[in-house]
C-alpha cells in the first residue's frame, strides 16, 4: 500500500482520495474568501502578502510534524519542547551579545545541541510508551513549558534588552528583536511590487529545509523510517532498529521545531516566553492535517498546502468578515475548523500499528 503511494503513478490518485471532504470544504472556503475579498473592499495584494508572510513564519513548524508522522510516532503534540530549545538558543545568542543577522545564525547554532539533548530524552521516553505517544507528547510539552517558566526567571540572564528593568533579572514575557534578527531572513532578496511583498529569503530557507527533508526521506534511513511507520513488525523482521529510527525522527522533529520558532520570531519580530509556547503545537498539527496528512502519513506537499490553507483562513477571515458584516467571528471559526480537523484525523482508521 505504502509503496504504491510513493511511486508516481498511484500518487495523484492517492492524493485525491486522501483529500477528503473536510479539506475540500476548507479549500472551497478559502477560495470563496479570495473571491469575496476584493468585492467587499479588502485589498487583495495585501491579503496575499499576508498569507505568504504567515506561510514563511509557520512553514517550518508544520514541517516539524513530518518525521514523527513518518516513523509512526503520530502527530507531534510535544512541539513546545522543540520550541523551548529554539527559545534557549535565541535568548542565549542575545545574551552573548550577538546582534543583527549573525544573532539568528548563532541562535540556530546554539539551539541545536539543546534540541538534540531534549529530543533524545523525549524520543527515549516515546520509545518506552509506544501506542500512547500523542497524549504523553502533549503533556511532555506542557510540563516542559511550565518548567521553563520557572527557568526564565531563575537562569542568570543579564542582557538589559531581555530582563525586567526594575529587578534586573528574570526575562520579560516578550522581547523585541529590533536590532537583533528581526526579518533577518525576510529581508534577503525581498520583492516589493506595490502592495505585494514577498519575503524571499524566508521562503527560500523553508524550501531548503523542505528539500532536505524530502531528500532525507529518500535516503536509506529515510525509507527505513517510512517502513517503521507503516509496519513496525515488518521493519523489525527486515533488520531495522525500530527504536533507533524512531529516536532519530523525534530528534529531527524537535530540531525542526527549534528552527521553526526562530524563523517565526524573525518574521514576527518578538520572542515570546513563558506560557506562549503552550498551545503552539495545535495550529501546526491542524495545518498539516488540513494539508491532507493523516495520523500516520504526511508529505512535504501536505505541509505546503496545509500551511497555505490554514494561514489563509486565519488571515483572511477577520478582514473579510469585518468588511462584509462588521462581525468578527474569525476566532470562533479558527477554533472550530482547526480542532475539527484534528478530530477528523484522529477518528480515521489508520493502517498498520495503532
Amino acid at each position, binding site marked *: 500500500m505504502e509503496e504504491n503511494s510513493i511511486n508516481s503513478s498511484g500518487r495523484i490518485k492517492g492524493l485525491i482520495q486522501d483529500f477528503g471532504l473536510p479539506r475540500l470544504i476548507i479549500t472551497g472556503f478559502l477560495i470563496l474568501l479570495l473571491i469575496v475579498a476584493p468585492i467587499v473592499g479588502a485589498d487583495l495584494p495585501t491579503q496575499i502578502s499576508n498569507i505568504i508572510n504567515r506561510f514563511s513564519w509557520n512553514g517550518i513548524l508544520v514541517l516539524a510534524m513530518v518525521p514523527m508522522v513518518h516513523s509512526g510516532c503520530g502527530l507531534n*503534540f510535544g512541539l513546545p519542547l522543540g520550541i523551548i530549545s529554539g527559545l534557549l538558543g535565541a535568548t542565549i545568542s542575545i545574551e552573548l551579545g550577538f546582534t543583527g543577522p549573525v544573532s539568528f545564525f548563532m541562535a540556530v547554532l546554539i539551539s541545536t545541541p539543546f534540541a538534540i539533548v531534549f529530543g533524545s530524552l523525549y524520543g527515549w*521516553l516515546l520509545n*518506552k*510508551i*509506544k*501506542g*500512547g505517544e*500523542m*497524549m*504523553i507528547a*502533549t*503533556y*511532555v510539552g*506542557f*510540563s516542559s513549558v*511550565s*518548567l521553563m*517558566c*520557572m527557568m526564565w*526567571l*531563575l537562569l542568570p540572564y543579564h542582557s538589559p534588552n531581555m530582563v525586567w528593568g526594575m529587578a534586573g533579572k*528574570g526575562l520579560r514575557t516578550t522581547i523585541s528583536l529590533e536590532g537583533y534578527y528581526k526579518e533577518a531572513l525576510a529581508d534577503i532578496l525581498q520583492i516589493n511590487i506595490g502592495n505585494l511583498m514577498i519575503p524571499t529569503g524566508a521562503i527560500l530557507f523553508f524550501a531548503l529545509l523542505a528539500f532536505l527533508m524530502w531528500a532525507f526521506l529518500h535516503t536509506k534511513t529515510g525509507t527505513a523510517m517510512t517502513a517503521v511507520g507503516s509496519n513496525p513488525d515488518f521493519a523489525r523482521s527486515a533488520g531495522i532498529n525500530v527504536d533507533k529510527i524512531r529516536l532519530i525522527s523525534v530528534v529531527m522533529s524537535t530540531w525542526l521545531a527549534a528552527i521553526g520558532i526562530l524563523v517565526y520570531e524573525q518574521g514576527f519580530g518578538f520572542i515570546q516566553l513563558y506560557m506562549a509556547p503552550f498551545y503552539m503545537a*495545535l495550529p501546526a498539527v491542524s495545518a498539516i492535517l488540513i494539508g491532507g496528512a493523516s495520523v500516520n502519513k504526511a508529505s512535504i506537499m501536505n505541509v505546503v498546502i496545509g500551511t497555505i490553507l490554514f494561514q489563509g483562513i486565519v488571515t483572511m477571515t477577520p478582514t473579510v468578515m469585518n468588511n462584509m458584516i462588521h*462581525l468578527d*467571528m474569525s*476566532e*470562533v471559526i479558527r*477554533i*472550530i475548523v482547526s*480542532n*475539527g480537523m*484534528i*478530530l477528523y484525523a*484522529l*477518528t480515521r482508521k489508520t493502517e498498520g500499528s*495503532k
Partner: protein
Amino acid sequence: MNKTNLGDIFRRFSVPLMFVLICAVCAPISGLSPSYLANEIVTRMGRNAFLILSLLIPIMAGMGLNFSMTLGAMAGEIGLILVSDWQIVGIPGMVLAMIISVPISALLGLFCGKVLNMAKGREMITSYIISFFINGIYQLVVLYLMGPVIPIKHSNIKLPRGYGVRNTVSLLSMRQKLDNLIPLTIAGVKIPVATFIVIFLLCLVIIWFRKTKLGQDMRAVGQDMEVSKDAGINVEGTRIISMVISTVFAGVGMIIYLQNMGNIATYSSHSQIGMFCIAALLVGGASVDKASIGNVFLGIILFHTMFIVAPKAGTVITGDSMIGEYFRVFVSYAVITVALIMYETNKRKNKSRAGEELARAQEEENEGAA
C-alpha cells in the same frame, strides 16, 4: 514475590507520598495558619469534589481520563447564564440551571461518546481535542447567538453591542446559597453541610451504580472490549452511556463549583477545569485505569494544599511570587505526565507478560504433544 508487591504498592502511592512531602515542606515555610488552610481545603472540597467524582465512570469503562468533562462544565455555564437572565435566584435557580444543563450535557456526552468510539485506543487525546472543538461551538453560542437567537434581556449579562455575553456574569443571587443552606462552623472552620450531603449522595450513587448490571458491563468493557463483545455486551453503547453520565455529572458539578465562586468567567471558567480536576484525582493515587472515591478526597486535600501553599512558600524562598505559581502549574502537569507514562509502561509490561505466558503455554502444549 513479596518484594515486588511492596514495590508495586510503593509505585501506586508514590505520587501521593511525593505530595505529602511537598506539602509538609512548603506548609510551614508558607507561614499560613492551620485554621486558614483547613478553611480553604474544606471550601475547595465542597467546590471541587462533585466535578472530580464525575471522572470516575469513564475510567471504569476503560476510556481513561475524561478530558472532555469540560463539555459538561460548558453546559452548566449555559444553564447558569440563562437562569441569571431569567432572574431565578437561590437554590431554585441552581436546580433550574441543573435541569437545563442536563439535556445539553447529555447531548454533548452522546456526541463525545460517538466520536470516542471512532477513536478507540486514543480516547484521551481525542477527548482532549473534543474539549477544544466544543469550546469553539460554545463560544459561537455564547458570543454570537445569545442575544439575537437566544433571548438575553438584562444589560448586566448581555454586551452593550446587543449580542454576546459579558466576560463575567455575576451569580451574587446564588452565591454560596447551597454551601450556607445548613450553616455549621466547627472550630472556626466553616463547613458547607448541604454541599457535602449532595456530594455524599453522588458517592452513594456511584457505589450503587458499580453493582448494577450496567456498571458490571462497564467494568467488563473496561477490562477487555473483545471479550465483552463476545459475552454479548453492547460495547459501543456502554461506552457512550459512560460518557453521557460523566458529562451530566460534570455539568451539575460545575454549577456547584460556580455557586461557590460567586461568578462565571464566561470564556475561561471551564477551559482549565478538566486539567486540574484530573491532576487532583491523580494526586490522590488514581491511575488512568483505576480510580476510587477515596482517591478523589485524598487528591483534593493534597493537591489543593500544594496549590495554596506553593506560591507563598515560593515567595518566601525565592523572593519572587511568580516562581511558586509557576511551580504549582508545573507540578500539576508533571503529575499528569508521570501518571500517563506509568499507565502506558504498565500496559506494555502486562502485554508482554501475557505474550510470554501465552508462548510458554504453547511450548508446554507442544512438549506435551511430543
